[in-house]
């Protein structure tokens, strides 16, 4: 109980400090924090579905881009809260359509499909913009300062972590751990696989859509190649993997160092950025397939394990 209260206090304190950050930071620092929070949220939302079910999705950017485009298309028509709502609904609709048709696919087929989906959505938007609206890019002029965008992202990130925490402790969380292990037995336990996976995919996708929507005003100008850039999907994935995709804090903690590293790389090696990125992906997957958390835990356990005879405390969770 004490420990629980302590963790909550830390969480609240961190949130308060982060919320106060815009009053102390320069524009660059705030911009950096916005980007960072964006990826923390993306990676956490990715982990919420893919980390728990084992279905690796490369469709992150499809939802991200849909969110951004919804804002671009509607920001002069509807009040801002409604714009966000419509964006979330668009993401939800896409997630349900995609989920219903693909969550039966297993393993690599799902990965390929989601990757294809992101490209498909990008091509569709491009086609629409060229043939119907007659432009390729759109401008977003909104009265939102960077600090507002930052606060919204912070709220979304906190909500994502909170929802994930709740799900992990619920009956659904237990079901999810089992689906990744053995779908046949899971079905046999009375778990409605299709519905469980679909619900989680939809939830995760709506969060991703909102990240795109909230960040959209930052860019002022968007076009399909920017907001549907597949690198977003890959970065999200590798951040979540680095931290440990199936853990509550894993994706967030993976996102922080990698985001800063990518910022530094793209500033200092703009021409070799992609190559360095690729090498890093490979290194992470080879060296830490289950994330740094699991890696550290394993080493701590094997060191401590020699002293213990009976494996106790099997329940301890991060």
């Amino acid at each position, binding site marked *: 109980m004490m420990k629980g209260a302590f963790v909550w206090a830390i969480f609240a304190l961190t949130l308060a400090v982060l919320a106060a950050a815009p009053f102390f930071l320069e524009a660059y620092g705030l911009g950096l924090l916005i980007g960072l929070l964006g990826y923390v949220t993306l990676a956490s939302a990715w982990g919420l579905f893919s980390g728990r079910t084992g279905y690796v999705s490369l469709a992150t950017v499809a939802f991200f881009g849909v969110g951004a485009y919804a804002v671009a298309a509607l920001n002069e028509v509807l009040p801002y809260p409604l714009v966000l709502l419509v964006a979330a609904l668009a993401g939800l609709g896409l997630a349900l359509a995609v989920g219903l048709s693909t969550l039966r696919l297993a393993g690599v087929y799902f990965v390929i499909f989601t990757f294809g989906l992101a490209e498909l959505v990008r091509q569709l938007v491009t086609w629409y913009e060229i043939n119907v609206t007659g432009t390729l890019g759109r401008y977003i002029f909104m009265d939102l300062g960077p600090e507002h965008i930052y606060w919204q992202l912070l709220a979304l990130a906190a909500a994502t972590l909170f929802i994930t925490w709740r799900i992990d402790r619920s*009956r659904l969380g*237990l*079901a999810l*751990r*089992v689906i990744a*292990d*053995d779908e*046949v*037995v899971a*079905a*046999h*336990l*009375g*778990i*409605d*696989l299709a519905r469980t996976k679909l619900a989680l995919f939809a939830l995760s996708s709506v969060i991703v859509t909102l990240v795109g929507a909230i960040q959209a005003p930052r860019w002022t100008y968007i076009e399909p190649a920017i907001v549907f850039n597949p690198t977003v999907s890959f970065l999200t994935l590798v951040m979540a993997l680095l931290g440990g995709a199936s853990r509550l804090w894993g994706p967030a903690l993976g996102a922080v160092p990698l985001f800063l590293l990518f910022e530094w790389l793209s500033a200092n090696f703009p021409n070799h950025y992609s190559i360095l990125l690729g090498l890093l992906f490979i290194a992470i997957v080879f060296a830490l397939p289950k994330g740094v958390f699991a890696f550290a835990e394993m080493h701590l356990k094997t060191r401590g394990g020699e002293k213990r005879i009976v*494996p106790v405390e*099997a*329940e301890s969770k991060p």
Partner: protein
Amino acid sequence: MLDVARLSVSYGKHVALTDVSIRVATGEAVVILGANGAGKSSLLKAIAGLVQPAPGAGVALDDKPLTGIPAHEVLEAGIALVPEGRGIFGDLTVSENLDLGAYAHRARKEAPRNRDLVYQLFPRLVERRHQRVATMSGGEQQMVAIGRALMSAPRLLMLDEPSLGLAPVMVGELFSALKQIRHAGMALLIVEQSVRKSLDLADRGYVLEAGRMVGNGTAASLREDPVVQRAFLGMAADA
């Protein structure tokens, strides 16, 4: 209670079951005998909704048709399977595995009571409830698997080779637990290699050979059946 009619199952070109019909009455214990590859597991899987039977089959629980409905709904209808190899989750604790057993809607309200019953049946699990299942012995894991199936409060419990790979002492313990479950009024459908023990437990039995039903009768008559004796009981030693 359970009525299986004209059930055929094939995996691609390989035919596992041909035209098999069985019945299990309320509270009855029924054993399926047969050599490896006779189709016993396929029969249980088809009833559980884990494999699709060929068209024309009829599976029903108390006249509620179960053919072609997904596995999680079969469980909701009241049929639980303890799969071969147990299918328990080694990274979870005993208590978490049992929680999963009560995932079905039908089982949620009664979960605390059913948990007490499981712990009464397998007192050893009480002291181990916070232990990771992977660290336990085969016999204890089988207890978890059976306990988890019981958590769904089934009306019919199906067990696929529950004694497989267990030490003889554990097999004895397992069968006395199954007897208790039976006396509590739950119907049992068991696929088992340990023929003598399962015939002692069962009311009736069916004999499968190469995917076809070749015999059935009361447990007593099967025990006396020369074919069964020769094939499964090692008659010479028995006489």
